[in-house]
């Protein structure tokens, strides 16, 4: 396994400050994880160890919570976060094919990030735009009524606009 990068000093301080703000109470773990992920984008092992130490709970417990909730992630998100809706409406209108196509074009699996850090891929259930099914969101932007053939073009455009 690749050795994890050390967190920068200021990141360590920020995480510790988040824990302090919540009184280092074990009951605040989920709130702390939320804020830490908001700040850093993801929750690497070292960050979980810092939180465990501050809250005086085993690191295994922190990891248990992080892996239980799908919102938390241990992999850094790409600059552009792609979410494919697999809710009922999108699913019946072929969002699985879209997902396969995105996986093929970017050569990553769900939950992964491209090596250049540009794109990360996730699935979700319903963004409330069922009328536009099948729906994919990239960053804040919603793409509706997509077909597999549109995927490459859209991804190229997003990448080109960087």
């Amino acid at each position, binding site marked *: 396994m690749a050795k994890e990068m050390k967190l920068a000093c200021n990141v360590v301080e920020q995480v510790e400050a988040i824990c302090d703000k919540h009184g280092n109470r074990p009951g605040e773990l989920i709130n702390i994880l939320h804020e830490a992920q908001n700040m850093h984008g993801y929750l690497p092992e070292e960050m979980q160890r810092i939180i465990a130490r501050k809250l005086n709970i*085993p*690191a*295994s417990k922190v*990891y248990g919570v992080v892996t*239980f909730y799908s919102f938390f992630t241990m992999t850094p998100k790409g600059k552009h976060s792609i979410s494919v809706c697999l809710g009922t409406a999108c699913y019946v209108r072929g969002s699985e094919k879209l997902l396969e196509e995105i996986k093929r074009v970017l050569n990553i699996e769900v939950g992964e990030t491209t090596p250049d850090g540009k794109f990360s891929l996730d699935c979700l259930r319903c963004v409330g735009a069922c009328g536009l099914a099948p729906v994919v969101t990239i960053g804040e932007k919603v793409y509706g009524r997509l077909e597999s053939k549109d995927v490459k073009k859209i991804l190229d455009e997003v990448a080109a606009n960087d």
Partner: protein
Amino acid sequence: MEEKNMITLTIDKHEVTVPAGTMLLDAAKTVGISIPTLCHIDLKGTCVQNMPASCRICVVEIEGRRNLAPACATRVTPGMVVHTNSARVIRARKTVAELILSDHPNDCLTCPKCSDCELQRLVMRFNIRTMPYNNGEQSVRKQELTPAITRNMEKCVYCRRCESVCNNVQSVGVLSAIRRGFNTTIAPTFDKMFSDTNCTYCGQCVAVCPVGALTERDYTDRLMDDLSDPDKVVIAQPAPAVRFALGEEFGMPAGTIVTGKMATALRDLGFDYAFDTDFGADLTIMEEGAEILHRLKKFLAGDKDVKLPIMTSCCPAWVNFYEHEFPDLLEYPSSAKSPAQMFGAIAKTYWAEKMGIPREKIVCVSIMPCLAKKYEAEREEFKVDGNPDVDYSISTRELGRLIKRANIDFVNLPDSEFDSPLGESTGAAAIFGITGGVMEAALRTVYEVYTGKTLPHIDFNDVRGFEGIKEATIDLNGFELKVCVAHTLSNARKVMDALRAGKLNYHVVEVMACPGGCIGGAGQPYHHGNIEILKARAAAVYREDEGKALRKSHENPDIQKLYKEFLGEPMSEKAHHLLHTHYSDKSIK
């Protein structure tokens, strides 16, 4: 006053009166009704407990309630009418068991837990003959082989007993449930291997696992090979606690002392010499006792830098614990090796020279109530040019299996004595395997050496019993020696935290990682949550001690001879080289 706190209810056809707060499961037991359980464990009088009420095997029907209730987590109420064996109850339990089986490998025939598995017992009890839900996908989970523990999570039934003991009893906190749904598993920190975490290999997770998910690393095949190799001299050293539990593997009642049968069985298995770790235990007292006296004398002479309390160092899980978590306090534990490692060091030097057998030809096998001993034997500092002092360690259970495999009729074996000279021992060594025992053995010697007087009362009752942390004060010619005994690592942590905070006022501290000490070790026959088994073993320990002609380590004639012929005196240069060790910071940063 008494009656106010008692509650009367009806369970099946019995009227039952029990104290308020009693769970239905325990209330039913008082009238001989044994409700089946799986996730639940409660080793009463110790902190070994797991009561998540998650498996629902113990459901019962309560009149006036719509749903079935888990007996393990439902408290009695006045006038409650409970049915523990109605058709509805029995059908529900059976379905629950069938659902558990639907995500279980069902390779019972070759499972290491076969015939000792709590799930298998339920299947027999519920008369399950088909597996109606077994056509689906099964989850694929991690398998791991550490020096001490084998992990096969495909067999896990999510009772979370292992997680409870790892966190609550041992405070090590390595195990936790991770992920969710079908991907749930119980895993070491960050889903790593045990060996990459601060796991101490205490093995209490194995001791409570109801199925074959967590078991010991099995060395019996390797031992069979060595026993049949004519070029090797294979010597056995069973630990003090083994002889009080081995009989259980053959259906003998808990607490049966099988010392003599075990010695015979070891020879029948083909061991060239049946020695005894008890010899190593007496030797440990000589060295550790001398170290206690050495530090005490310095302390009394006004030396401010002397490290007190001195702590025992026999328990390998405890050693791992302080190396992982208290690297700033490594000067406190005694430098004395454990009895098993002292035995190995002496066997492969003193005895080997005496017999004219080269070290490499000797295979020293320890038989231990413990799984951490398997790891301890592999530690680099216990090897000479790559050759270990103790080649490997097998558990009490493994010895039982080996004896059965060799078609030895254990129950009807005649008694025999251990071989000389590494087989002689005193009552002080016999009690090494129980919480408070190492302390008591040390006190018997320290008292007599320090005061020059004979002990008026040889039994130190204050350090006996299953209380988590025990204290005692001993009068040494006017000096009040304060001692403390802790068992389970969560109690040890309390002691260490107090030491770190500068709030610990003892001179000597004993720690054993397992509940009850080695008699409750992870290599012992499974207790399945029955505290009576541990109590019976404890009573046997003190019976064996009382039956010994010699009950103080320094009176062991073969130990005296060993010092005269070979070591000189306790803590001599030679003794230091062979019988003492050092510790290192193994904390995970």
